[in-house]
């Protein structure tokens, strides 16, 4: 469904008063996400995970330079995401409550989201699908708990039934119960035939809900693994790349062995 080939991303910036330089944030990245699949993209903060999401959606700041090809359902989208796609076929599940307008009621924001994505359905029903009552419509974002805010964001995103969900740290700051709820919802999207690009730094939590794992370090792809290979308490011998094995062994429950 989504195919990325040799994607590089650099930023122009100034050093000192006038000297200009370019900082490379993603280099020669290639990956595919198929329908029915959850692909987890894992890596430490600063590895370029969020930039990957913004690049796919065409939301990069003007000083970004991209190279390579991004193809969605056979259409090139690296030179700007066509209006019909963004929000409707590809949707962003954002990280924080700050992605909700602090001065607008949940109901209004949901209505706007529906109109923008040309989605059908009543806000009340959509909220109910995510286990939220109609009273939530009248609330401002400030009054939502972390779990509720995440569900509201998911409701806004999924109303248009997009094919590809790009979830940028959708579980950051959530307790395990809410975290698993969000991940299960994403998994459900894939099971119904959609695709999910799950950006996370919490690999252990994402594994049970993912099919494959792409490991990102310093803007480079350094491993593409089957999620099932991260098993057992042993050495993770089934994993192909050394980085993945090191990562696996460093997880709690596998010896915390950062040096192995």
């Amino acid at each position, binding site marked *: 469904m989504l195919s990325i080939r040799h994607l590089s991303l650099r930023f122009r910036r100034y050093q000192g008063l006038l000297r200009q330089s370019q900082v490379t944030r993603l280099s020669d990245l290639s990956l595919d996400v198929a329908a029915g699949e959850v692909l987890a993209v894992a890596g430490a903060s600063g590895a370029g995970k969020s930039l990957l999401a913004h690049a796919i959606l065409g939301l990069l700041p003007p000083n970004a330079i991209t190279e390579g090809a991004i193809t969605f359902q056979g259409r090139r989208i690296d030179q700007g995401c066509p209006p019909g796609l963004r929000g409707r076929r590809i949707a962003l599940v954002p990280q924080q409550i700050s*992605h909700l*307008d*602090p001065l*607008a009621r949940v109901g209004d924001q949901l209505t706007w989201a529906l109109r*923008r994505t040309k989605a059908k359905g009543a806000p009340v029903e959509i909220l109910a699908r995510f286990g939220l009552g109609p009273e939530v419509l009248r609330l*401002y974002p*400030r009054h939502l708990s972390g779990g509720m805010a995440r569900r509201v964001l998911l409701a806004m995103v999924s109303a248009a039934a997009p094919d590809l969900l790009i979830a940028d740290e959708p579980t950051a700051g959530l307790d395990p119960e809410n975290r698993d709820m969000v991940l299960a919802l994403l998994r459900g999207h894939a099971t119904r035939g959609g695709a999910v690009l799950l950006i996370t730094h919490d690999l252990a939590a994402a594994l049970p809900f993912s099919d494959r794992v792409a490991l990102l370090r310093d803007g480079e792809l350094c491993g593409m693994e089957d999620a099932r290979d991260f098993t057992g308490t042993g050495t993770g011998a089934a994993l192909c790349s050394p980085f993945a094995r090191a990562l696996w062994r460093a997880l709690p429950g596998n010896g915390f062995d950062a040096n192995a």
Partner: protein
Amino acid sequence: MAGIFLILRQILLLSLVSAAVFALMKVSPVDPVDAYLGPAIAHVSPEQKAQIAASWGIDRPAHEQFLAWAGHLLSGDPGHSTTYNAPVLQVLGDRIGPSLALAGGAWALSGLLGFALGLLAVAAGGWTDRVIRLYCYVLAATPTFWLAMLLLMVFSVRLGWTPICCAGPVGLPPEEVSFAQKLHHLALPLTALTLFGVAQIALHTRVKLAEVMQSDYVLMARAQGAGQWDIIWHHGMRNAALPAVTALMASVGEMIGGSILAEQVFAWPGLGRATVDAGMKGDVPLLLAIALLTTLVVSGGNLMADRLYTRLDPRMSGR
């Protein structure tokens, strides 16, 4: 409860301000009798001067004068204007209408036009933004009274489209001036004041809106496929409106200041001209009365700005 507290606070504030203004008037080295008499001072003996001072009550100690003045004010009599040789209340009554038309009209217009310009600058970006920004910066740097003089030179002296002064034809009593004549005389001063008031509001709106456009929720809206105008309409106006209204409320004082200057240039018979005359002639009762009246208006504006913030911004309120 909070309302009563606010009103009490406001009363305390006004009392302190009036005491401070009274003190300012009293520490001034300008002698009211000298200023009142002007060049005629040469023909007046010290005894006569003392007599005038005694009739105005300014020969008594300052605190007695203040108490006497405050007492009269509370009973509804702000005193007698020496400049116009009339009760202060009558001077205020005659002049408040023209001042309201000029300053109030310009204030409302600048709020509307300024907000619209600020939105347009960010929404359209590019050259539109540059032109609007340039206008705002140049206008913010322009002396109000000079702008008024330029308009006067172009439209009244050179082109003759607008009258050169006053709120009606010279010699015609104010009650016989027709509405059309009033508008004709108001047009140029109102334009001058509005041109100047718009700049601040537009700049404020623009800065705030530019911040909003960098926010996560605007990113989210873009990710939903929202266009520029959609974002401005739903998120921009909402989030920029409060700062803009606050700026507008805070600009009441600036607008009154501007109208003092505009009234001077256009010989507009409002409170601004009365202020300047009173200041020049050392007319303390009139100056005090106008100072307090404008203080009441401005502090009212400030209070409204505060209330609006707590009432309308859900981040500030508990609910």
